C-alpha cells in the first residue's frame, strides 16, 4: 500500500485481495473497503499509509467480540464440544483436559462420539496423557446415555470440569443435529445450568461455509464460544470475523498444533496483525 498520493482504486484492489485471500468474505470485505473509501478517498499520502492499516485493524477489531475466559466456577463445569467432521474437536478436548489439569482441576472426559471408528480409543489416549477420568460405553452406544452417565459420575466423584467430546456432524444432517440437541437436553436436565459452555470448533482452513456451520449450530445448540483450530497452518481463519460479527459468539481459543499444549486464548490484536500480513 502506498507510493500514491491518495487511496486510489488500485490500492483498494490490493486491500480487497488481502482481505478476500484471508477468507474475510465478499460482503465483509466490501463493507471494509467502502469505509476506507469514505474515510480516505481524498486524504493525502502519509495519512493514508498509516491510516489504512490502523483503520482496517480498528474496524476488524470492532467486529470481533472480546473473548472472556471459559466459565469454570460451577462444579462440575460442563463443556460441550461440537463441530463438523475433522475440525479438531477430540484434539481440542485433549488440550483442554491438559489445561484444566495443569490448573489443578479434576477433569473428566465424556466419550460421546460413539459412531466413528476408534473415536473412543483416540479419546482414551488423551485421557491417559492428561490424567483425566473418562466415561465411555461401547462403540455404537447411545451418545446421550454416555452423557447422562458422565454427569452422574461427575457429581458423585467431585469432578471440577467435564469435557464432552461429540461426533463430527455436518450441520445439514437433521437427524445428527437432533442427536446433538438430545445430548444437550440430557445434560441440562441432569445438572443445573449445564452445559456451561458449548464450543464450536472451526477448522481455520474452512472457507465461507464456516458461516453457515456456525449459524446452524448456534440455532440448534446455542453456542457460547468458538475454537479456531489449525491456525498454525497458512490459512488466516478470516471467516471468524463474519461469524462473530453476525452471531456475537466470541472466539475463545485457538489451536496451534497437534500437541497437548497447543491451545491458547484468542488474541484479537495478534490475529488481526497476522491476517493483514
Amino acid at each position: 500500500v502506498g507510493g500514491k498520493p491518495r487511496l486510489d482504486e488500485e490500492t483498494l484492489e490490493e486491500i480487497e485481495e488481502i482481505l478476500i485471500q484471508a477468507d474475510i468474505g465478499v460482503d465483509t470485505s466490501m463493507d471494509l473497503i467502502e469505509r476506507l473509501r469514505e474515510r480516505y478517498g481524498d486524504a493525502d499520502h502519509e495519512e493514508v499509509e498509516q491510516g489504512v492499516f490502523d483503520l482496517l485493524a480498528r474496524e476488524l477489531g470492532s467486529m470481533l467480540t472480546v473473548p472472556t475466559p471459559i466459565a469454570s466456577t460451577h462444579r462440575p463445569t460442563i463443556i460441550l464440544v461440537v463441530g463438523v467432521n475433522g475440525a479438531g474437536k477430540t484434539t481440542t478436548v485433549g488440550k483442554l483436559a491438559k489445561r484444566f489439569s495443569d490448573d489443578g482441576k479434576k477433569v473428566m472426559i465424556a466419550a460421546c462420539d460413539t459412531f466413528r471408528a476408534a473415536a473412543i480409543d483416540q479419546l482414551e489416549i488423551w485421557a491417559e496423557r492428561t490424567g483425566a477420568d473418562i466415561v465411555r460405553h461401547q462403540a455404537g452406544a447411545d451418545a446421550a446415555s454416555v452423557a447422562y452417565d458422565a454427569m452422574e459420575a461427575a457429581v458423585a466423584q467431585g469432578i471440577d470440569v467435564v469435557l464432552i467430546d461429540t461426533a463430527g456432524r455436518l450441520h445439514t444432517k437433521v437427524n445428527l443435529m437432533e442427536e446433538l440437541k438430545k445430548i444437550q437436553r440430557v445434560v441440562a436436565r441432569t445438572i443445573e445450568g449445564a452445559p456451561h459452555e458449548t464450543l464450536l470448533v472451526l477448522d481455520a482452513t474452512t472457507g465461507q461455509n464456516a458461516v453457515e456451520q456456525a449459524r446452524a449450530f448456534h440455532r440448534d445448540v446455542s453456542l457460547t464460544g468458538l475454537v479456531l483450530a489449525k491456525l498454525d497452518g497458512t490459512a488466516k481463519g478470516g471467516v471468524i470475523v463474519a461469524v462473530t460479527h453476525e452471531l456475537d459468539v466470541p472466539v475463545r481459543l485457538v489451536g496451534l498444533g497437534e500437541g497437548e499444549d497447543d491451545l491458547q486464548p484468542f488474541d484479537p490484536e495478534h490475529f488481526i496483525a497476522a491476517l493483514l500480513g
Partner: protein
Amino acid sequence: QISDKLEGVFKKLRGQGKLTEANIDEALREVRRALLEADVNYKVARDFIKRVKERALGQDVLKSITPGQQVVKVVHDEMVVLLGGEQAPLDLTGSPPLVVMMIGLQGAGKTTTAGKLALQLKEKGRTPLLVAADVYRPAAIDQLEVLGESIDVGVYRAPDGTDPVEIARGGLELAKATGLDTVIIDTAGRLHVDDERMDEVARIKDAVSPREILFVADGATGQDAVTAASAFYEQLVFTGVVLTRLDSDTRGGAALSIREVTGVPIKYIGVSEKPDGLEVFHPDRLASRILG
C-alpha cells in the same frame, strides 16, 4: 441463482440501448462475486473471469437477446473445461502390486477415503491391502483396522516405533508375498509448512513408487486451498485429488482452485462417512454447484 442475477443486470442495461463491453464487465463482476462466495481463490477467479470475458465477446453476447443466459453458459462451459472435461479414472496400469498413497492436511478425510477406495477396488475384483503409516495421531492405526474389518480388507501395521517409510515398505512386501494387487497407504495429516513431515512423505514416495498419489482435501476449504495444494504438488507431484465432505452445503470452489493451480484431475468426491460414500467426480455437476 446466478442466471437470474445476470438477467437482472442485463435487463437494467438493456434500457440504455445497445450493450457494450462495459456492460459485460458489470455482469462478470456478479459472476466473480459468486465465485468468491463459493470459495474460488481470488487470483484463480480473476484469471478465470478474464478468459470468460474473451470467450463471451468472441461469441457475440452483445448481440444476443438473452445475454444473461449466454454469459452463464460460457461461464459454465469454461468451468467444466477447467475442471477437467470428463472423468479421470484411477491409474491402475502396470504389474501388481500397485501402490496408492493418500496425502493431505490434518482432518481432510484420508483414512476414511482409504477405506472407501479399498471397498470400491474390492468390488471391482481387485485385492487391496490397507497400510497404516500414520504413527502420530492417537489410535490412527486402530481407526484403519476398524475400517478394514468393516469391509473385510486386510490392514498391515507394524510395531510401535516403526518408521512410516519402513511401514510402507513392509506393506508392499506383504502384498507381493501374498499376491495382493493393490496397496493403499494411509499417511498422517501434515502441514505443508512442516518441512520434516513433508520430507517424510517424500521419502515414503521414493521407497514405494506409488502409481497414484491422491491429495485429499476438505471440499469446504477456503482460499488456503491454493497454498496447500501448490506446496504438496511441488514436493510430491500428486496424481489425483479427492474432495471430501461434499455431502454438506459447501459450494466447493476449492475444486476449481486446486485444479487450476496444479493441473491435477479431481478423481473422486466424498459424499458420506460410510465406506460406500465415494463417487467418481463429475465436472459438470460441480460446475453447477460452484455457480450456485
